């Protein structure tokens, strides 16, 4: 198992290298000249040829492409993503707190998603075709289909305005987590519990379930076995949900004025703040690779066959 984990980890390193290179290339394929963006952002009234050359030198843009990439990559490794073109502050000092806020929101949501999906999935699978199953699936269909801004608006109106129980926005106390977390979790859990449900139903007809019953094992042990075998599909989905939520909290963060990555990224993209965008893409891509690796490791722990494949 440890051998597998080390191998799997090593494989993700070249992937990260490729991602960092692609990020760098894509940004530099942009038709805009970074020097011009910087000067515009600094509010320089007349952009002269001289000024452009000077700025390029300051930013190191006169260097060959590969050298620039290597320099950028080396500093990225030390979490130095350069300075923001717009504010002049180090990118990391802006990105880190926003990232942390989004991570907090994501982690709490992911936890709720996992708990909700497993509980609903198991209950629905065991009550297949009965009222409970039909009701849960019906409600989840409705809630998943609803856009998250609509759901957010309804919840804010009900719980914050009408009942005055929860804060409308911001990130001031634990209670500010409740509404955004519900909005995120409900839409994902509504999809994921179906994966667990159908996977459980598939496993229900497996021979090992029949043999377990034939040996007189109690139902709760059999359910546990089925769940463990059903989780394989779900683990990958759950682990990938974390980076997906990290990158897609824009709507929810804007609705609830959450000072996170979503709001920051939109601002950076609109002001063409290249170092910020680069860092944002790199951080998210790293999160994707990281969680993919983690999901493979968890799957290998559940499914011994996978360990031998690498």
């Amino acid at each position, binding site marked *: 198992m440890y051998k597998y984990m080390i191998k799997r980890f090593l494989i993700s390193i070249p992937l990260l290298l490729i991602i960092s290179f692609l990020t760098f290339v894509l940004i530099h394929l942009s038709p805009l000249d970074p020097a011009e963006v910087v000067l515009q952002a600094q509010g320089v009234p007349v952009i002269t040829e001289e000024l452009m050359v000077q700025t390029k030198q300051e930013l190191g843009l006169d260097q060959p492409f590969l050298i620039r990439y290597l320099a950028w990559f080396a500093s990225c490794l030390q979490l130095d993503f350069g300075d923001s073109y717009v504010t002049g502050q180090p990118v990391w000092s802006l990105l880190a707190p926003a990232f942390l806020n989004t991570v907090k929101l994501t982690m709490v949501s992911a936890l709720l998603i996992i708990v909700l999906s497993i509980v609903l999935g198991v209950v629905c699978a065991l009550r297949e075709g009965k009222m409970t199953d039909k009701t849960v699936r019906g409600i989840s269909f409705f809630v998943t289909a609803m856009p998250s801004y609509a759901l957010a608006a309804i919840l804010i109106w009900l719980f914050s305005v009408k009942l005055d129980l929860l804060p409308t926005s911001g990130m001031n106390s634990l209670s500010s987590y409740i509404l955004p977390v519900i909005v995120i979790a409900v839409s994902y859990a509504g999809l994921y519990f179906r994966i667990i449900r159908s996977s459980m139903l598939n496993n229900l007809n497996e021979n090992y379930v029949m043999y377990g019953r034939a*040996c*007189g094992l109690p139902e709760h042990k059999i359910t546990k076995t089925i769940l463990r*075998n059903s989780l394989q599909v779900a683990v990958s989905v759950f682990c990938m949900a974390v980076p997906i939520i990290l990158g897609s909290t824009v709507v929810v963060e804007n609705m609830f004025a959450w000072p996170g990555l979503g709001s920051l990224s939109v601002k950076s993209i609109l002001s063409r703040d290249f170092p910020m965008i680069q860092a944002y893409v790199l951080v998210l891509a790293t999160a994707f690779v990281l969680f993919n690796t983690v999901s493979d490791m968890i799957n290998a722990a559940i499914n011994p066959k996978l360990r031998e494949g690498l």
Partner: protein
Amino acid sequence: MPNFLEVNHLKVWDKSSGEVILHDSSFKVNAESCLAVVGESGSGKSVTCRAIMRLNKPWVSQSGEILLHGENLSFLSDKEMRQKRGKTMYLIMQHGMSAFDPSTVVGVHLYETLKQHFGWNKHEAAGHMSIAMKSVMLKEPMEIMNKYPHQLSGGMLQRIMIALALVLEPDLIIADEPTTALDTISQYEVLEQFLQLRERLGCSMIFVSHDLGMVRKLADEVLVMKNGVIVEQGSTESIFTAAKHEYTRYLVSTKQTLNDHFKSVMGGQGVAKR
């Protein structure tokens, strides 16, 4: 001899489609004897086995009397039935490869089953299993119990199921085509284990198979099924020598043709006839 298991007017049908799978089955298994159930695929052999254990799929319903030691199993609660399964009646599955939970080592299933019926801890269970596994020619049982199902062969898994039966000492063993998924050599070895199992436990057995050679060797009585109906039942000798029903004669004769063909191919060495 007293009837140990008596099945009267067993009817099994699919609730959703209304299709009848078993029409009206009645048969008996005597104490310490072996009843073979033969017939083509889809004739209702497995469904009969599962109906006795009450293990058919939830959309399948059954009616009729199943008397074990004179006790009607149809009236038992789920919990009482669960206590009977494994301890009193034990099922040996067709596919050893898929009978064990693929996500854990095979030992876990064995320990949990023995804990359930005897309250043994892991150490005690492993001790009993080791002895049983050695007696079915599984060397190094501790190592095998720490392996995942996919790391073992079908024949080995089949023998683990037999070893568990040796420890559980059930009164009735139902074996649902236990050798079909195995190669010829493993088939022979597993058959040997079944003969010994009967000898050692003195239990009754229902042995489902479409290998008539094996049936002849193992069974006292034979039940022939076709399309969910029992077409003939009788002692093994009478079925093989003086079958009344046309279908039985057909089964026996095809087997004979196969055997003759096999013998001629193997140059007169009738390995298959064992």
